[in-house]
């Protein structure tokens, strides 16, 4: 609890005690002189009134002076002053004291949820130990670390900036970033991400990024800014509040003036009997109008919705899911189509050469040598697997050649100029383009690379990819969370794609797509969601963030997997899953739905109570105590409800 809050607490506490004391004296008629002259209670009641509410009155006067009168302070001041005039001293003070109690509780609750978000974002390293050229070690602020600095990270310390391990081996704890509790092993040459905690041993890490560009800073910025991208519900409430308050204030004004005016006209013209003044004195209407003013404050609405979404974003980030805005949490709760990439998302993406089928008169070594030389220097997973296969091949190895120039045919393969020959490595379609006949078996359920040199077919290399263990479970759970259709898009051949699709329970498979084709398919799917010009249900795309940017941005919600350390993925996606566990997707859907439900509960509850109290008080059935509950009590209940999201 902050100092300011503590001061407030004692001030409001004193006022509350004084007020309750006075109430007892008044109700039990303890002091006779006061019973005879109830007006003497006025100065006594003014004491707790000013102790608790002097700042509200001050703010009200400042508001009028600055010509911005429409705020809570004004409403509360008018309402309480009105109640004093209506002779309801106790209620006037009650409104002010309980209003302040509510405000106090509200600041406390907001402070609490702010603190718990900060705590789960407690990944910011406080310091960095830099090893200088002369071998001395200096402790500096992570901000001051420069790229290329060698950092010493002891067991239990946080990695201050992103870097590469230069020496030392360890198990690092990535839980704060990914929600994954199993530690990850690191060794020299591995990338290491800021915010992780070194589990054991000493690591020497070379900084590859400054603090500002490191993963930790990026994540913090994302979470902080997430609450600025507002959900539809939130925008609705903000707009609503702009109308709600003036409407209630003007109805209060009408309630104070109109009945009295009508009665006045009625009595003077003789249409109404004079006795009506006794039955409905003007002061009653004034009192009812004041009750209106107390209820008119929109704070419960304005605070509870963003607080719910903030809680949802916090709950997600604790599990290693970064949601870049409240709006995405809202969209994902109404997800009906999930489009997924295959390689690296549903499958591990660790390709390995499974089989070599050289053409007649070509040796295995020759086939692999040609392919490996053409792919030499490429970082594509398929290229890497071919290079690895050559390194580990069971034959006499030659020094690999380096291609003079290469041309990537997106979705088809690679054309490379090696020495004086042209080598083609790629799909059947690439062979067709160059009119090279190739052998193809039916229903090949792995990726096939055909290889040709100077127009002569050398054979094919079969490369397989493993399915992730969690993919099947994840798809099943998504369906349980209300996803109607799971669609897989891949550049891979039809037989491979269909087998993976069947094994995982994917509803529809589109294969042999070029990157542009994926965008087209997503657009088609988006169109199919439209009914009568309105979109029903939303579409999300999941990919590993590499080469997915156009599809990610075209979808309603773009989800990137394995975001840890990948700037491109963090930039392009709306939701980033820090590790590569697909089960996080049904989790985030469920968090989204819970958040939206709690936000809706708060809106409905707050509005229902407010409208109810407004109606009742217009007919004189609710007093100011009910109004205080409708304002302060409702705010407190909404905050408590929103904070449920942060509970484990």
């Amino acid at each position, binding site marked *: 609890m902050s100092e300011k809050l503590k001061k407030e607490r004692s001030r409001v506490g004193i006022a509350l005690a004084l007020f309750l004391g006075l109430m007892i004296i008044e109700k039990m008629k303890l002091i006779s002189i006061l019973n005879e002259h109830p007006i003497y209670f006025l100065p006594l009641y003014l004491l707790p009134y000013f102790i608790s509410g002097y700042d509200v009155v001050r703010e009200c006067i400042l508001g009028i002076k600055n010509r911005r009168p429409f705020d809570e302070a004004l409403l509360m001041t008018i309402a309480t002053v009105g109640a004093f005039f209506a002779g309801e001293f106790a209620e006037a003070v009650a409104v002010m004291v309980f209003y302040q109690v509510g*405000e106090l509780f509200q600041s406390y609750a907001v402070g609490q*949820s702010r603190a718990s978000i900060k705590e789960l974002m407690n990944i910011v390293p406080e310091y960095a130990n830099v090893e200088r050229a002369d071998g001395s070690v200096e402790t500096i602020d992570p901000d001051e670390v420069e790229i290329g600095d060698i950092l010493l990270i002891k067991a239990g310390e946080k990695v201050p900036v992103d870097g590469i391990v230069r020496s030392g081996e360890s198990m690092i704890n990535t839980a704060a970033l990914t929600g994954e509790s199993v530690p990850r092993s690191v060794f020299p040459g591995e990338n290491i991400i800021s915010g992780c905690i070194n589990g054991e041993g000493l690591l020497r890490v070379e900084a590859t990024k400054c603090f500002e560009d490191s993963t930790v800073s990026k994540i913090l910025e994302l979470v902080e800014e997430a609450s600025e991208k507002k959900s539809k519900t939130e925008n609705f409430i903000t707009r609503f509040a702009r109308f709600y308050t003036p409407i209630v204030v003007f109805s209060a004004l009408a309630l104070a003036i109109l009945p009295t005016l009508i009665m006045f006209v009625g009595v003077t013209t003789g249409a109404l009997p004079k006795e009506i003044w006794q039955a409905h004195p003007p002061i009653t209407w004034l009192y009812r109008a004041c009750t209106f003013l107390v209820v008119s404050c929109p704070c419960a609405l304005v605070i509870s919705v963003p607080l719910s979404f903030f809680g949802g974003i916090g709950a997600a980030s604790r599990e290693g899911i970064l949601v870049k805005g409240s709006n995405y949490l809202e969209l994902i709760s109404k997800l009906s189509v999930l489009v997924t990439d295959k390689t690296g998302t549903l499958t591990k993406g660790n390709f390995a050469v499974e089989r070599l089928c050289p053409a007649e008169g070509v040796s295995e070594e020759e086939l692999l040598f040609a392919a490996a030389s053409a792919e030499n220097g490429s970082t594509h997973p398929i290229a890497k697997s071919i290079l690895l296969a050559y390194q580990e091949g069971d034959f006499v190895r030659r020094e690999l050649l380096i291609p003079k120039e290469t041309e990537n045919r997106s979705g088809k393969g690679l054309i490379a100029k090696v020495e004086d020959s042209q080598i083609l490595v790629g799909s059947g379609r690439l062979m067709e383009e160059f009119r090279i006949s190739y052998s193809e078996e039916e229903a090949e359920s792995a990726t096939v690379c055909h290889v040709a040199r100077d127009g002569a077919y050398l054979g094919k290399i079969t490369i397989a990819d493993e399915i992730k263990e969690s993919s099947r479970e994840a798809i099943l759970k998504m369906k349980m969370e209300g996803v109607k259709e799971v669609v897989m898009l891949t550049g891979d051949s039809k037989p491979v794609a269909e087998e993976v699709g069947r094994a995982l329970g994917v509803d529809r498979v589109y294969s042999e797509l070029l990157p542009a084709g994926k965008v087209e398919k997503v657009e088609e799917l988006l169109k199919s969601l439209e009914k009568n010009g309105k979109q029903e249900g939303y579409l999300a795309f999941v990919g590993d963030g590499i080469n997915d940017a156009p599809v990610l941005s075209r979808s309603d919600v773009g989800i990137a997997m394995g975001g840890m350390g990948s700037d491109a993925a963090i930039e392009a996606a709306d939701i980033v899953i820090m590790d590569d566990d697909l089960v996080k997707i049904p989790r985030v859907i469920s968090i989204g739905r819970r958040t939206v439900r709690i936000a809706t509960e708060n809106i409905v509850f707050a509005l229902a109570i407010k409208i109810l109290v407004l109606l009742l008080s217009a007919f004189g059935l609710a007093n100011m105590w009910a109004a205080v509950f409708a304002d302060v009590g409702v705010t407190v209940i909404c905050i408590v409800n929103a904070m449920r999201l942060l509970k484990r």
Partner: protein
Amino acid sequence: MKKKFECEIDCANCAALVQDAINKIEGVQSAKVNFLMQKFTLEAEDARFEEILTEAIRIGKTIEPDFKVLGV
């Protein structure tokens, strides 16, 4: 230039009002008052940044006397 400050703002509704008003100041490219994080972000012309910042705080205070920007 874009700069982020810690700030004090007491209620969600006033944060929205303060933000709206600061955004209307001439020379402000974008201003955000984040109630939950208690952060104030101001993006404004480089040359007049200090001047605009002072004006923003002044305007903010007329709407919500408790609005405070720390570290200025």
